[in-house]
């Protein structure tokens, strides 16, 4: 049974989250303040931390930074969507994921499970993450929602080349240049064919792509913000 430390100053919300997570098989210890959370952390061990950004005694970001300095415990940050920068800052300070209030309870559960799963495996340093899509450059593997998808080595190289330039229009020529020197397994096939294979592998609905987009007459765009 996973032990979760829930740092949330709103007692009623904390109780509801604790009850909800308890039903899903977690053991939740609530801590209403940052100081209380740090005391608990020293006395007990937890598998994951759910941290509210706004606490009465301290800033959730500061607390996250202090905890990160000592421990590699997975941190899921809860925050009222205030500033669009919050997300970036939270993740830079070492939060593993972020969930804006008001959240879908099931999404909280899913994200909590996801960071616990990640916590068990070795810390992935060479992984590009776009929502549920993970591109593991070390293992040359692509996963959607933690599940590996089968693509060829050439397609993986193409995917990495695009993902590294997410949010930019890439013409077919640019893409050809980027993967040049790579072994062309299927020489006669155009980039478009490989793209549609990639879509089949990683898109929820390849006919309505959300990750690899076509820009008519210009080329392709690897979406920067996915699964939002």
């Amino acid at each position, binding site marked *: 049974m996973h032990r979760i430390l829930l740092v949330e100053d709103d007692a009623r919300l904390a109780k*509801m989250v604790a009850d909800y997570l308890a039903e899903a098989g977690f053991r939740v210890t609530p801590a209403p303040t940052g100081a209380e959370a740090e005391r608990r952390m020293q006395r007990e061990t937890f598998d994951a931390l759910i941290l509210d950004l706004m606490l009465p005694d301290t800033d959730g970001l500061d607390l996250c930074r202090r905890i990160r300095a000592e421990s590699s415990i997975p941190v899921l940050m809860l925050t*009222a969507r205030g500033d669009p*920068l919050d997300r970036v800052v939270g993740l830079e300070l070492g939060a593993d994921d972020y969930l804006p209030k008001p959240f879908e*309870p*099931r999404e909280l559960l899913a994200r909590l499970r996801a960071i616990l799963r990640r916590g068990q495996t070795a810390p992935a340093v060479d992984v590009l993450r776009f929502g549920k899509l993970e591109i593991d450059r070390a293992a040359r593997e692509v996963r959607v929602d933690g599940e590996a998808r089968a693509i060829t080595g050439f397609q993986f190289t193409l995917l990495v080349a695009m993902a590294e330039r997410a*949010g930019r*229009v890439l013409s077919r020529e640019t893409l050809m240049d980027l993967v040049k020197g790579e072994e062309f397994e299927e020489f006669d096939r155009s980039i478009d064919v490989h793209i549609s294979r990639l879509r089949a592998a990683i898109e929820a609905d390849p006919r*309505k792509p959300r990750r690899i987009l076509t820009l008519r007459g210009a080329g392709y765009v690897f979406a920067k913000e996915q699964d939002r």
Partner: protein
Amino acid sequence: MRRLHLKLYCAIVGTMLVFAASCAVAWHFFAPSRSTLAEVETTSALAAALLEDPGADEARQRAIIASLSQQMHADVALFAAGAKVPALTSHTPYVPSADQLERSGWQITHGGPFYSLRLEGGRQLVVHPRRQLLLHGLHMGMLLLCIAALLALLTWPISRGITARLERLRAGVQQFGEGNLAARVAVVGHDEVAALARSFNESADRIEKLITAHKLLLANCSHELRTPLARMRLAIEKLPEAERASSSELVRGIAELDALIGEMLLSSRLDAAAPLARQEVDLPALVAEEAAHFDRDVVAMPVTVNGDPALLRRLVRNLLDNARTHAGGATEVRVEAAEGVARLVIEDAGAGVPEADRARIFEPFYRADGAARGSGFGLGLAIVRQIATAHRGHVEYTPRTGGGSRFTVTLPR
């Protein structure tokens, strides 16, 4: 203590006094003196009278000329009638040319003015004062100019001293205006400039406090309003299966409230003119990404703009959302590059906006006359305009050819 006006007053009065004194001195030494001219004339007339005395022999005449020369600091010469060469002279004689000798009275020559007097018997007395009696107008003018130039040079540091401090003050104010709320100016001295600097600093303190409080309020608002929403959302989850149908309306209501809180906070933040997190943005890529969520294709020319990607996303999303809500979705999404600007055009084939209302659709919570409750535009288009303005761009509405709406956002590149 108020000293700046005294300083300016002293500088002006001082300059005028120095100028007046310099002119007086110059006048004293160089100006033509009426009395000196008269002296020359009188003394020469007296000398002439003595020279005309028949009893005066040559030694006597020589003594008279020497005395005249000494008294008047002048070169003196006495010409016999019709002679070109003087008969008698002082120690250093003055010999004018023949035609100058013809006339009597004051004459101006290159060697300076001389006074010529015709004696009885055709003799001529020529007196040439060594002291410069008449300064030419040109010389006097140049002298005054030199004094003025010297004064201009001397007063330069004074005026710099006053304006340099104003310049520093201006730099501080500009920094503050550009968004550095911590910028303050140094208070130097005790005059009006120092007082201005002090009151600027006080105002800046107050503005900084207000903006900080505003930011804090925004952040807290979001937290305080959304925590209860989160509780409501969790409570719905605990309803028994049988009540799910009615709870879906609750879930939608919560989502709408959440979106509205977000819009109000964003709008308020944009109103506060917080600085943008600018970077180079590939506009076609960004628009394509947003359009994909609405299953819309994009026609685009390559163009980048310098802007806040999160806000630009919001702008595109709001326009696409508006088209979906009011016209069943956008019919065309275009990104165009033009001279110095990037243009985003989003068209729909809906009912369009009546001409009378076009100017008002970008106002917050605008609702067309007679439109049903809930059909308002909310803050979506108001935010579009705010974001465009924050990027020094603009958005306009034009009717689409063949019915419907066309929204054009123009952003500087």
